[in-house]
């Protein structure tokens, strides 16, 4: 039974494909995770059984160390930190791919086809490693979340990339002096950092999806370098997944895919904060808001990143319960780029025990805003800015938005009048039908809940 690992690999590939298939619906999703774990077990055990592998001791110790670090990471991180954790996970996975590529390079110093695969593997691995660390830093706010730009940035980045690519080509064509591979490695690491620096926090959903795709591509490239088809299948699935998610994110922001693929190149200046408008707004107290809400029949809540920051989802659940008891229909409208990663809002609402059949996608719920008595915007800004529909000069022009301005009354919970991620003013706030609820999202929602019983 020398070839037992081959059979294990085939089962691993099947389980991994099944895993993503089952994830398509919430009903079977947990089975998907189970299938993925079984697939991974087949892959690891199968590999340990390969006759090339003779030295077990250090491998088992390494697996133990990895598990001892990974498990607390997954259990101790709060749900609002899922984007950070995902970025960190990407960093580890792509580092692994890059290190394997490096080891293979020094073992074989190949040229030609194998080297092509190794070049792709290492460049993507190292750049995804540093880019993910930077993304983690930005999400955790260890690094400034505003885009950092400087004169000639595009030129520097493109020059670096061209230099790295030419070193890569050189290594593919012929054996090179000993400085070439380390330089190539350094450039890849540096490029990952430079790639993330000009990207703002609100663009993170796209960037994380893209890094996911890069990690998958690095894995597939490793499969080519090692002639390992299991790696090719798993890597290709992962690359496809990240790619689709980033395309969805791009569409939801009306940006071209190339625009994001090459970082923030040529993108509108997002750091610019528009002059504050002096137009009057209507503000309201929690008591007034509660009065309107308890008299409403249909309410649509629009959560955004601000809800995550304020950790307001649990209070929101209390409000939903209280209103539902009074016969008010409460639903949630989720914009594809709300939050810091695709589907971020859904996870937070689910954490607060809000059933997922109350969460609706943009296309699905937009026609219903016209019939809603109240649209309650919590911590969302650009995704509800009507300027995206008609103001051709606006940086977000053409971006699909949630039509909250069509609701009978619009309520916006916001700390102050400061602009959102795109740095532009939001005309929604100045409409006659809009009530601004100034304050911290969590405590304001709690206040509304407190004011509600008086009206029942």
């Amino acid at each position, binding site marked *: 039974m020398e070839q037992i690992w081959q059979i294990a690999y085939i089962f691993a590939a099947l389980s991994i494909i099944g895993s993503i298939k089952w994830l398509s619906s919430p009903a079977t999703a947990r089975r998907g995770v189970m299938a993925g774990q079984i697939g991974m077990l087949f892959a690891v055990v199968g590999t340990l059984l390969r006759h090339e592998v003779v030295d077990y001791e250090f*491998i088992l110790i390494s697996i133990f160390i*990895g598990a001892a670090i990974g498990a607390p990471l997954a259990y101790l991180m709060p749900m609002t930190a899922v984007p950070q954790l995902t970025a960190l996970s990407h960093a580890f996975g792509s580092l692994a791919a890059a290190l394997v590529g490096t080891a293979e390079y020094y073992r074989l110093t190949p040229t030609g086809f194998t080297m092509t695969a190794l070049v792709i593997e290492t460049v993507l691995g190292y750049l995804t490693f540093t880019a993910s660390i930077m993304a983690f830093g930005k999400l955790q706010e260890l690094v400034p979340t505003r885009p950092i730009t400087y004169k000639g940035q595009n030129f520097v980045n493109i020059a670096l990339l061209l230099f790295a690519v030419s070193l890569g080509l050189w290594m593919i064509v012929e054996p090179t002096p000993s400085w070439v591979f380390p330089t190539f490695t350094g450039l890849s690491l540096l490029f990952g950092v430079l790639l993330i620096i000009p990207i703002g926090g609100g663009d993170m959903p796209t960037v994380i999806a893209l890094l996911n795709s890069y990690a998958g591509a690095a894995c597939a490239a490793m499969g080519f370098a090692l002639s390992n088809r299991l790696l090719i299948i798993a890597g290709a699935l992962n690359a496809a997944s990240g790619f689709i998610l980033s395309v969805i994110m791009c569409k939801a922001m009306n940006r071209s895919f190339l625009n994001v693929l090459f970082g923030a190149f040529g993108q509108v200046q997002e750091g610019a904060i528009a002059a504050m408008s002096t137009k009057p707004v209507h503000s309201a107290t929690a008591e007034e808001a509660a009065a309107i809400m308890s008299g409403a029949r249909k309410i649509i809540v629009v959560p955004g990143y601000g809800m995550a920051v304020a950790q307001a989802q649990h209070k929101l659940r209390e409000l939903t319960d209280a209103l539902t008891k009074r016969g008010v229909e409460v639903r949630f409208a989720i914009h594809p780029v709300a939050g810091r990663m695709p589907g971020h809002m859904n996870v937070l609402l689910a954490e607060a025990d809000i059933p997922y059949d109350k969460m609706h996608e943009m296309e699905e719920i937009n026609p219903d805003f016209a019939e809603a008595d109240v649209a309650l915007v919590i911590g969302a800004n650009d995704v509800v800015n009507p300027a995206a529909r008609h103001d051709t000069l606006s940086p977000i022009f053409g971006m699909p938005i949630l039509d909250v301005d069509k609701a009978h009354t619009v309520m916006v919970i916001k700390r102050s009048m400061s602009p959102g991620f795109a740095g532009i003013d939001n005309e929604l706030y100045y409409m006659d039908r809009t009530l601004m609820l100034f304050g911290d999202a969590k405590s304001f929602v709690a206040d509304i809940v407190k004011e509600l019983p008086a009206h029942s």
Partner: protein
Amino acid sequence: MTAELEMSLYVLILAVPLGLQLVQRVSPLLHTPLMSLTNAISAISVVGAILVAGAAGASKLSQVLGCVAVVASTINIVSGFLITDRMLKMFRKKDK
């Protein structure tokens, strides 16, 4: 082109459209778990790491790089799967 490479390319050109198909069917509701699950799956690079670290006659450099790679990819596997499951546990349909 070697037979090995030909085979690998066939696998790639079949796996990419399969992945695109599968992922397009995932509801936006589950995009975060999808990402963390595929993230865990991409750590299948642990296979390459084990082969590098444990191969007969591996150099010291290979062993060190390989073991660090095994640690890193295991972190990714374990945290990826656990957080995915933790998230999915929270999704439920009806109100009580």
